[in-house]
């Protein structure tokens, strides 16, 4: 049983110039599926297709065996929750107002979330370590706190798949680690399935080391080069081919944590 399956997916805003082409993969329950690749390789556009925001020219996407195109937005939100790469803040809602929006699909008619749904939102805030933030204005949060709030909002959807587009793009080391710890906990304890685009390749090693089932898809120029475990995919040779860089890999053994890492050294001439 696969939760999410892409079959020969192709998309381009201009049908003559495809952004990505013939993408196929299946995401299994309880794994983290990382999509990596250089800027402009089509990661975000691929994620937009998974979210149903753009309609693929060819191929299909199945969510729990149903064609994505047949899912109404309300049904879609029950299956897939989304954490955006960046969020432009408009009005100073309270943190609880934001997080409870995760229950939108579960409200009856056009109504607003009831007290049990607010309770669900409070639990999500607790899960990301933001207990006590309920009445804070979300416009006054730091970038790291905002990202955690958006993760809490996605959690509140109680969907089995969470799609994150570069979840740590604007975060400092501390908040990056917090996000990775939350992801680890969600997958291990709640059996959540995660699809995540990232530029931080060491995150895949982090997850591998934390014994989270993790696979990495390496994208390049709109195609998937290879799919495998972090150790199989994130290698000096693959990075040389795709990113055109010289890098080194190594293993740390500090604080009792044995983990692989990769460091970019220089561009190929």
């Amino acid at each position, binding site marked *: 049983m696969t939760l999410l399956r892409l079959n020969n997916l192709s998309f381009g805003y201009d049908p003559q110039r495809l952004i990505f082409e013939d993408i196929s993969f299946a995401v299994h329950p309880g794994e983290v599926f990382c999509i990596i690749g250089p800027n402009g390789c089509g990661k975000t556009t691929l994620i937009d297709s998974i979210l149903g925001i753009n309609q693929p020219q060819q191929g299909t996407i199945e969510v729990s065996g149903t064609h994505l195109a047949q899912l109404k937005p309300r049904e879609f939100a029950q299956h897939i929750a989304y954490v955006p790469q960046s969020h432009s803040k408009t009005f100073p809602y309270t943190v609880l107002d934001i997080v409870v929006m*995760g229950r939108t699909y579960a409200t009856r008619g056009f109504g607003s979330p009831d007290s049990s749904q607010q309770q669900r939102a409070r639990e999500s805030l607790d899960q990301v370590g933001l207990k006590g933030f309920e009445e804070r204005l979300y416009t006054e949060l730091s970038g790291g706190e905002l990202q955690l709030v958006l993760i809490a909002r996605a959690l509140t959807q109680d969907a089995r798949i969470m799609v994150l587009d570069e979840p740590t793009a604007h975060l400092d080391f501390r908040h990056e680690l917090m996000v990775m710890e939350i992801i680890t906990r969600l997958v291990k304890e709640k059996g959540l399935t995660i699809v995540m685009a990232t530029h931080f390749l060491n995150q895949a090693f982090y997850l591998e080391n934390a014994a989270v089932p993790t696979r990495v898809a390496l994208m390049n120029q709109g195609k998937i080069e290879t799919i495998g475990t972090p150790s199989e995919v994130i290698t000096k040779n693959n990075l040389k081919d795709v990113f055109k860089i010289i890098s080194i890999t190594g293993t740390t053994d500090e604080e009792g944590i044995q983990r692989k890492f990769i460091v970019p050294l220089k561009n190929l001439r």
Partner: protein
Amino acid sequence: MSSPKKTIVTIILILLPVLFFFGTICIGRYYVSLTDIFLTLWQGLTGNNSGLSSETTTVILQIRLPRAFQGAMVGAALGASGAAFQSLFRNPLVSSGILGVSAGAGFGAALAIVLFNTVFLTPLFAFVFGILAVILSYFAGKIDNTSTTITLVLGGTIIQSIFSALISLLKYLADTATQLPAITFWLMGSLASTKTADVFLALIPMVLGMAGMLIMRYRLNVLSMGDREARTLGINVMANKAAIIGFATLATAGAVCVSGIVGWIGLIIPHVGRMLVGNDNKWLVPASMSLGACFVIFCDTLCRSLTGGEIPLGIVTALIGGPFFIYLLKKTKGRSW
């Protein structure tokens, strides 16, 4: 909001318009007391003679009561539409006229005045052209079957300027002795010509529009997250946007067709609401209705009682609204939203 504060604010927002409503009926050159109002209403309901002079009952029933009611409805409709559009367009500087409903209504009114030389058809034409302008803006901003906030606002701006040009054209063609002043005064907005019949006719779109916005108001929170997030949170963005634009337009067109162009309400009233009840549209939309009703009644009372004649409503709302908006901007340092 905490619950005790919520309760207090709710009570104030319900009582305030009632207070303003009866207050404005009392104010004016013909003296009317609160007791007179209730006696007149009682007489109207039961048919018992209250012993009041017929002048008093006429002033109350034929002039001040319809006008106060019209003012309350116009204010509530414009306040709610402004709040809805601000969330929908994710922009606190947007008002109810952003998609050209006021410009369209102005053109319709001017056209009726020039073509028929009668006030009878003016509200109808204003209403129809107000709605037509919004439909045109919507399709002008719709590209590839979707409409982003930017293209919609752009569409609205274009249609607004086209209708403004057409209004100028009609003014240029109008008879300078009768029609031109009529057009000019209409565009300044006023409740002076309120008739009981108008009140009931314009009530239909205003009530429909406001009811729709009240029912859908939580969706405004979700839509204000942006199209992409709103969709993944589980709502059909295009359909919800279109419905809210439809309801807000009905309410605004209903208001503008009887009051003329009254600015500032759809812009500042939601901001006062935000300061009082916060940004959750569950509270903000009804609060904007209450505050809008109060503001228009207040301004209209000034219009008809400050001087011997009538000052156009649009002038008073702008003269009070403008400085007040600057005050808000300074006080919040432009950051609170």
